[in-house]
């Protein structure tokens, strides 16, 4: 077991007081960054990068990767408490996390989210430890058709049969439309900017989400006169243990989401895609699938586990191939080069100490991260006790700052207000918002992959079945799409038969 030996050396390296201190600092910073919308993992890491130039590279990357773990953990906090996703990958967490908080179960939801995250990360680190070379080879198999197939699978696994299929379709198409605004990466042409240079950069996902979910939610709760109360959560440490007792029964969801997450992290589908797919598939296959969205613990665990597994696994292609699996990984990659390390296939050979020190730190810092975030659960649950007239304006202020800081553009704050109103209207009219968000995140990427594939095949659709890998993903995706129809037909057929038999 060459890996184990190297790993123990890595532990020896990571377990210095200095490095543990860096870990704690990194995680706490990451939590702060993750909680504030607009300050994302990439910003946080990029801002702190220059500070690390004088540190030993291993300590520096331990601290920076801990910021990253911190943001991954903390993205769930505002999603659960205020329906505002602090990070893009925690949008799916709002679907069941926020209803749980409204029922006074914020503590449970947060505990489940953090624990799920931890398990996802653990699976991903184990994967990195033992299968790195193999996995790196697998990642290379992904070209444009494969990427498109993966995005298709994400869409198909998420598209359920909503209450009104037409409103579902409209919501999804609006998302695609928003994603298409700005420059088309494939042709380099501008789409739907109407000659307005402020629209060049497109409509950022985060601004739409802050508006639809954050501001929209405040308008709804205002109208309902609920004013965020009735949510005073139990604030004690017992809630953690009680929730843990319930978790083993979701073992299948945990494993499934971990696998989805690892896979999406390695093939740069990203944590956001992973969380949606994790949620969608859990909903599809759970016994309580219909109750998803009304506050199921499973609906919190599924996306969080997948997101954290994916975020962790994304470091593997960065180290082994030199390609970043996420925006934060891209900044870390820049950091590696500045410290004089060359990420890529030779890193595992030439910089053994560094690589195994980092991998060992992933185990340690995720354990440390779990302890730190769990201890903050009562603190965050207590925020819900702040009166509405104080917390509501503060939320709006933080949302405005978040919207502004994405592009340093005043217009984006106006967009946020606009999407807040749109969110309020759509929600009242029973339009589901999830499909809009999903297609906004993945729409342009899916389109680009499709068109790149078409360029390569000269317009032949057969490319999506040109090898066993892409062929099987595409087929599974299409099966997912028709699954509701099939199962409906199946049950109808069964009913007819039994009806015929009894007659």
């Amino acid at each position, binding site marked *: 077991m060459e890996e184990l030996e190297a790993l123990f050396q890595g532990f020896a390296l990571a377990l210095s007081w200095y490095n543990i201190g860096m870990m704690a600092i990194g995680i706490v910073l990451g939590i702060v960054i993750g909680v504030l919308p607009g300050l994302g993992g990439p910003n946080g890491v990029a801002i702190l990068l220059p500070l690390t130039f004088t540190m030993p590279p291993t300590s520096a990357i331990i601290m920076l990767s801990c910021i990253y773990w911190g943001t991954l953990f903390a993205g769930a906090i505002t999603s659960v408490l205020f329906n505002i996703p602090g990070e893009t990958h925690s949008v799916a967490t709002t679907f069941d996390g926020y209803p749980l908080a409204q029922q006074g179960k914020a503590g449970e939801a947060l505990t489940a989210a953090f624990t799920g995250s931890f398990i996802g990360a653990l699976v991903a680190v184990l994967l990195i430890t033992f299968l790195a070379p193999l996995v790196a080879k697998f*990642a290379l198999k992904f070209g444009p058709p494969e990427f498109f197939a993966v995005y298709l699978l994400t869409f198909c696994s998420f598209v359920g049969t909503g209450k009104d299929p037409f409103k579902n379709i409209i919501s999804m198409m609006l998302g695609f439309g928003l994603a298409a605004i700005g420059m088309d990466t494939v042709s380099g*042409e501008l789409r739907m900017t109407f000659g307005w*240079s402020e629209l*060049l950069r497109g409509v950022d996902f985060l601004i739409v989400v802050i508006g639809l979910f954050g501001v929209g939610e405040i308008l709804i709760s205002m109208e309902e006169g609920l004013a965020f109360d009735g949510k005073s959560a139990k604030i004690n440490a017992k809630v953690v243990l009680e929730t843990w007792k319930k978790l083993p029964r979701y073992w299948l969801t945990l494993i499934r989401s971990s696998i989805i997450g690892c896979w999406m992290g390695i093939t740069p589908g990203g944590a956001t895609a992973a969380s949606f797919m994790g949620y969608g598939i859990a909903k599809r296959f759970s016994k309580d699938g219909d109750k998803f969205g009304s506050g199921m613990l499973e609906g919190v665990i599924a996306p969080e586990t997948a997101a954290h597994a994916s975020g962790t696994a994304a470091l593997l292609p960065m180290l082994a191939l030199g390609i970043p699996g996420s*925006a934060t990984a*891209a900044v870390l990659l820049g950091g590696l080069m*500045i410290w*004089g390390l060359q990420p890529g296939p030779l890193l595992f050979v030439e910089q053994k100490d560094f690589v195994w020190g980092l991998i060992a730190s992933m185990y340690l810092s995720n354990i440390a991260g779990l302890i730190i975030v769990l201890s903050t659960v009562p603190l965050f649950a207590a925020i819900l006790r702040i009166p509405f007239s104080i917390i509501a304006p503060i939320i709006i202020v933080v949302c405005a700052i978040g919207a502004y800081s994405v592009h*340093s553009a005043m217009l984006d704050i106006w967009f946020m207000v606009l999407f807040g109103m749109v969110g309020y209207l759509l929600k009242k009219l029973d339009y589901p918002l999830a499909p809009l968000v999903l297609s906004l995140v993945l729409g342009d990427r899916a389109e680009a992959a499709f068109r*790149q594939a078409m360029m390569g095949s000269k317009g032949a659709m057969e490319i999506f079945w040109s090898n066993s890998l892409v062929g099987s993903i595409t087929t599974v995706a299409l099966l997912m799409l028709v699954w509701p129809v099939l199962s409906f037909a199946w049950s109808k057929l069964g009913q007819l038969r039994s009806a015929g038999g009894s007659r």
Partner: protein
Amino acid sequence: MMRFTRKLFNKTSLLPLSLAAFACAATLPMQAAAWEPTRPVEVIVPAGAGGASDQMARTIQGIIVKHKLMAQPMLVMNKSGASGAEGIMDVKGSKGDPHKLMVAFSAIYTLPIAVNLPFNWRDLNPVAMIAMDEFLLWVNSESPYKTPKEYLAAAKASGGNFKMGGTGAKREDHIITVALDKVAGAQFTYIPYKSGGEAATQLVGKHIDSNVNNPSENIAQWRADQVRALCVFSEHRMTYKDKVTKDQSWADIPTCKESGVDVEYQMLRAFFLPSGTSKDQVTYYAELLKKVIATPEWKEYVAKQALKEDYRTGQDFVKFLEKDEAFHTKLMTEAGFASKK
């Protein structure tokens, strides 16, 4: 346990660091400049985090912090929307703000032509250019091609079935591909990716047949013997003679011209201030950059990225911009990349 820790500390850059500090203390001129920033300076990078421009900006930021070359802090801001148009328009709109510095590359010429962006580099105040980035023709190391001639002949024979990957559409990589098409009669299918890193992995995974990445974008794969460099699109060979792979240095790579493929292309790496800034302010930053490129860290950085050092400022820089702009306009119109509108 301690053994490993100590080993790491010894191994890492403590020694070069102290050397660098020493070297710099000696070279740092202590004269008071006529103008100095009074607020934190924002460096606008019109490209994504982690890319070549971003890395350069952050390296410079690190050098400035380490050698205390500027009293005010420096922030690097990525404004990568619309292939960088977001950052470019932001700086254009900040007339008279001396605390905003933009990192420029050839997008300042190509973007306005490709998408009808109401922008020209004359809308900004040129500060200095510090380097030129090279482009190389790369193929997968498992492919049989050893020279650009062989490769282009095979591409021509395939009748348009060879795929060239690159960053974005109607930009540097695409321009070079069209130039290759013209010189060799090959008809590459150009596939635009989001970044050079992606194009590099796609080449290793054999989803494309070649790419024209910068040295920094392919170095990892080159050193691991996954890709092969056929030639460099430059007038002269690169000057870095230290072995990068087992048996090759950057200087061992022939130019495309000497291999019989007459295509040349290099890309500037430069800095601009918004218009309406004073001469003193330009001088301040030009001098600052001069100090930066004199540091050993910068020398190490350019060697690693195989950048061609080329410091120009003032009239010299403006003349270069004029010539470079004309060159790009010609290439863009010939390639048919000009916007229809």
